Each structure stands twice: as C-alpha cells, then as structure tokens.
C-alpha cells in the first residue's frame, strides 16, 4: 500500500511531531509513504477569508502536484473539507475544463487520516498503546463537513490502556474558525471558555482531535491557564506503542 502524505502548512511548521507520528504509524502498518517536497498549502485560509483567486491558485497547485498520485493522506479534517467541499466550486468558477477533470479524478483519492485507516486500510485496531484518560473533540469540519462519524471513536476504542471519556456538548464549535479567532478574538475566546469548561470537567489528561487547528486554540488556552490537560493530535496517540511512548 502506497500513499503520499500532504502534511499541511500549519502542521509542517508548528506541529511537525504530528507528521512524524503519522509516518511512524503508517509505516508500522505497512504503508509505503512518500512526501512531495513541493507541497505548501491547500488554500483554505484564503478561501475562507474571501481571497478566492488566491485560494484557487493554491488549489490548482495542489491538484497539479497530486494528479498522478494514487492516494493522498492528510492529517487534517479542515484541509480535506476544503478540498472536498470548496475545490469543486472554485474550479467551476475559475478553472477550465481540463483542470476540472483533473480535480474530479483526484477527489476520491484524497483521504483524511481516519478515513485512510478505516476505509482504505480496513482497520480500526492499529496496535496502539496509550495508558491515559482521553477525551475526544469533534472538529466541525470533521463532524459536519466530512461526516467522519464514528471513525475516531472506533480507532480510540481499540487503543490499549486508553480510557475514553465523553465530552459534553460535543457538537458545539470550539471557536477557532481560522481567522475568526483573530478577527473576532473576543467571541472566539468566549466560545473557547465554554469548551474548556466541558473539557476540564471530564478529568481527562489529554484532549485529542483529528485536526491541530482546533487543538492549537484549545491547547493554547490550556497552557495559558496551567491546566492539567494537554492537547494531542490523534495520530500521535495511535503512533504510541509499549515501546514508543509519547514524547514529553
């Protein structure tokens, strides 16, 4: 099984450990991974802020880069949602016949990490060991955009030693929303404080999700408050085994 990793611009820069965990995990499962060094960004930030022409130029670049790739794996629900939900409209409006064809051919081959594990590899037990109490945060793009459904729960339930605690108000947005967290920082923070209350009341040591963008926002506040909880991308949990623990 071969796959090409699209690390995403923000994971590459701020959360390289998530990328390293994805590599460790997938190679352990027998996947031959490659990495196109020309990759940069999927264009989500620009699309969602209203810079459509700019987003399209990035989208075009993405499609060109992966046109001949068998499978693209992306450890970010928001980026996959961008590609799946918004690329068609962008290419419809700004692209030509040929680029639209390329996009439509590529779309089924772009998978978010949990989709890759469950749907492509057909496995929910990835041989992970993580003896901690964990709560799962459902990022909106994964929940309503990709409909990841029970995939993350299936994966977490098979992690040995992991105690999963349910998060109240699971389907309510954490308040990140990309540039919303800057433009509407106060409202974003109000939503964040409500989400933190739900997280902390689980008594979990870790809050995990399929997307580091939410976790950057949640984790940043936990760190600010010296809270006894950390955020960690699910890839890093799944990459842990008895002999390979989470780095401190």
């Amino acid at each position, binding site marked *: 099984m071969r796959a090409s990793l699209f690390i995403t611009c923000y994971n*590459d820069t701020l959360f390289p450990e998530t990328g390293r965990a994805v590599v460790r995990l997938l190679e352990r499962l027998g996947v031959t991974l490659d990495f196109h*060094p020309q990759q940069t960004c999927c264009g989500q930030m620009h699309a969602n802020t209203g810079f459509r022409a700019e987003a399209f130029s990035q989208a075009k670049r993405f499609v060109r880069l992966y046109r001949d790739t068998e499978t693209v794996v992306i450890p970010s629900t928001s980026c996959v949602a961008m590609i799946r939900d918004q690329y068609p409209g962008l290419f419809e409006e700004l692209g030509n016949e040929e680029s639209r064809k390329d996009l439509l051919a590529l779309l089924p081959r772009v998978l978010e990490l949990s989709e890759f594990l469950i749907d492509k590899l057909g496995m929910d037990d990835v041989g992970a060991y993580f003896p901690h109490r964990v709560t799962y945060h459902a990022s909106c793009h994964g929940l309503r955009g990709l409909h990841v459904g029970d995939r993350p729960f299936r994966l977490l339930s098979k992690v040995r030693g992991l105690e999963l605690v349910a998060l109240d108000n699971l389907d309510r947005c954490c308040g990140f*929303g990309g540039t919303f967290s800057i433009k509407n920082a106060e409202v974003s923070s109000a939503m964040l404080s409500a989400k933190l209350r739900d997280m902390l009341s689980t008594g979990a040591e870790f809050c995990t999700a399929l997307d580091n963008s939410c976790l950057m926002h949640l984790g940043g506040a936990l760190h600010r408050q010296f809270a006894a909880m950390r955020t960690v991308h699910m890839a890093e949990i799944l990459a842990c085994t008895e002999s390979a623990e989470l780095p401190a």
Partner: protein
Amino acid sequence: MSAEHHSVVLDPRIAPPFPAAALPILRNSQLRKNVAHATDVIQAKRARLVAEKTDWQELRSAAAAIKNETLAHLDHYLAEFEANCTAAGGHVHWAADAAEARQIILQILRAENATEVIKIKTMTSAEIELNPALEAAGIHAVETDLAELILQLGDDQPSHIVAPALHVNRSQVREIFARRMGRTDLSDDPEALTAAARSYLRKKFLSVDAAISGANFLVAETGAVTIVESEGNGRMCLTLPRTLIALAGIEKVIPRFRDLEVFLQVLARSATGERMNPYSSLWTGVTPGDGPQNFHVVLLDNGRSPILARPVERQTLRCIRCAACQNTCPVYRQTGGHAYGSVYGGPIGAILTPQLMRMEHAQSLPYASSLCAACYEVCPVKINIPEVLIDLRAQVIDQERSKTDRAFDLMYVAMRVANGIFASAARFRLAQRLGRIALWPFTRKDGWIHALPSLGARWTMTRDLRGIPRESFRAWWAARPKVESRSGEKS
C-alpha cells in the same frame, strides 16, 4: 433594561462592526445567561420533535425544492398572488424600498383617519423602520405580541427573530410595566405579568380599527395569506379591525395551497419546537361579514430581488424566518442578536443583512462566524449558510482590492504576502525560517509564546502559542535515511 440599558442601534448603516458591537455584550453575563437558556430550551424541544419525525430530512428537501421553484419563477408567482388576492377583494401594493413601503402604509392609514394601529410581530416592519414613521405622522403603533410590547415599552430592540425579548428577564419586565403601564402592583411572576399584558391589550383589540401584520406565507394559487403564532394576538389583529395591512417580503410567496402541508410541518418544529403553532390563520382577500373589510398587502423588495441574481446567494431567499439557525449558532449563543446591528441577527442575519444593504454596509457580518455549519444542519429549507458566508467574504475582499488604502489593512497585506509564499516551496521554507527568527524574541524557554504584538496580540490575549520548532516536518523528512521508492521518485 434598567441601569445597564445601552442604546442599541439596529441600523446596519450606522451600527458598529460586529467585533466592537459584541464586546460590551460579552461583558453582560446576565444577557448571555438568558440567551443560552432560551436557545437551549428551544433547541431541546426542536431536537425531540425532529427525532420523532421520521420523514424530517425528506420534508427539508421538499421545503427547499418548493422554495427553489418559487424563486426560479418569482415574477410569475407574485403576479398570480396579486391577481387572486385582488379578485378576492384585497388590494396589492408594490414597494421597491423601505421608504416606499412606509409611504404606502401611511397613505392607507391616513385614508382611514387612523390615530392608532395594533400590530402583530413582524420583523419586516422593523426592517423598514415603520414605527418611528407612524409616530412622526401622529399614528400610535401598539405592539400586541408580548415580547414586542415589552420591547416597545422598554424602548428596546429585538434580539431574536422568534423570541425577540429573550434578553430581558422578569424583573426587568416588571419594572417596564410599572413604569409604562402604571402597573406598580405587579410581582415579577411571569403569570401575573402576562395577565397584565392581556388586559392592557384586550382594550386595544376591541377598540382600534386598523392593524398591521406581516405574513408567513402568501399563497399564489389562491391569493391567501397565512400567519402562524402562539398567543392569539395575531388572530385578534387579523379579525377584529376594519382595516388590515399585511407587509410581506416578496420571498414569502409559495405556489400552491397544498405546499403548506410541508411548511406547516417544518416551521413550528424549527421555530419553537412544537408540532404546529397554537394558532395558524389563513384568509383570502375580504370575506363579507367576517373580518377586515379593507385589506391591503404590501409586497416589499428592499434589496431582495438583486439577491436572486447571484447563484450562490439566491438560497438566502428560501428563509422562512424560523430562527433555528440562531438557536443553534455558537456565536449567537455568546452575543445574542444586538451584536449584529440589524433586526436580522445570527446566521441568517449575517448573510441577509449585508445583501439587503447591497454590500455597502455590514461587511463585518459575514466574518461573524466560525463556519461550523451547525446552522446549515438545522435549516428547514437547507440554506447552506457557510457557503453563502464564504461567498460574501469574497465579495468584501473584492471590494477591498480596489481600495486605495488597502496597503494599510494589515490583514489584507498579510493574506497577499501569504499567498505569494504558498506559491513556491522554496519561498515557504524561507518563510518558515524567517518566521522562526521573527518569533524568537517572543518565544520563552519552554518553547511557547505568551504575548505577541499587533495582530498576534489578538491571539495571545487569551491563548499561548507554540513557538515554531527548530525542525519543520519537511526538514525532518528530508534528513531521514531514504529508501529509494520503486518509481524512482525522490522521497
């Protein structure tokens, strides 16, 4: 709103941008509590009824389809409605904008020598700023919906489409009734307050000879008008006076009487979490001996027809004003409606208000959303609000592109620069290195950033930020011992 009452401006032309408008409200913990409580109650009721309705998704599809069909032939259906309503003894007027609508209504009332008019709650009349115009013309408008009465007596503004006074608590109501109704004898028990409103309004219902209403649906096939309500004040206003004026946005029309079998199933479940509203009324023109004999419909455009021209935005006009989107929105939950600076707040307000303003005002509203899509999930007519929000953002940026002072807009410049960076991997790698260097002075020993200047301060006001690690993922990958891949591709 007693001591904390701040002058709420619901005019998009002069309201402060959303982030600024939200700030004082975020400091009002009582209002936030009221909003959270109200929206929780309705959401829970709605969820229970939706779970029980096994054909809920099919009803949504049908409702969206009927509205799409209507919008695709709106001119035809409006003309059909006009013909049938007129044939049944009603008078139909067309108002291109708010000023004209006010003019038409004033003309009708003056012809009746009206000095007072009773009103059923209609957001549309607030949209056209009707009450001040009536007062200026010496016509006293009496709001008969309890929430609207509370707001009117309290010199306040609606904060929610269906429960406009949800930001007001019972002791505030008691104080308002004492001050404006002269009822100093009342406790703050909602029963007592409601009974006071009931007797105050009863006198009005039986004596005032002109009424103004909105409309939930205009039926093209028959010329009928439908209004749904809970209290019965609607039935009073629709039945007792001699003159009735129904003000309706042009998007309120539906093709057939039969279409109500879909809308009457989705509207109340979405709006108030009931299977049907306590009272739904339908009437056609004038019926001799029953109800108002002088009946007028004012069809209002006021910025709606241009919305039809844009393929993505057109779905905005499917809205049936149920407010389910407001009840589910996590942003609205924190701010209530006043932060949106418009009578239409929440997700629908964020897309409708800027468009009614022809994108000349309220440009901050499309950004008043984290794009979580909870609204889309509950909308009974399947308006993809996030899709519209993103398209409106694109319109705002396109406006920005032609502005001469855009170089001073830090976010605009940052986005343009970022785009240049993402165009090449080499530039991206360089930007990563430069970014790490630029953030180095702010990065503490533990690798975290606690405070940033400028735009960054908007992040660090409540959150720390991970400093940029020394080695990016791609640098780590590039340095790994390689296995040459079968295709010969450099890994």
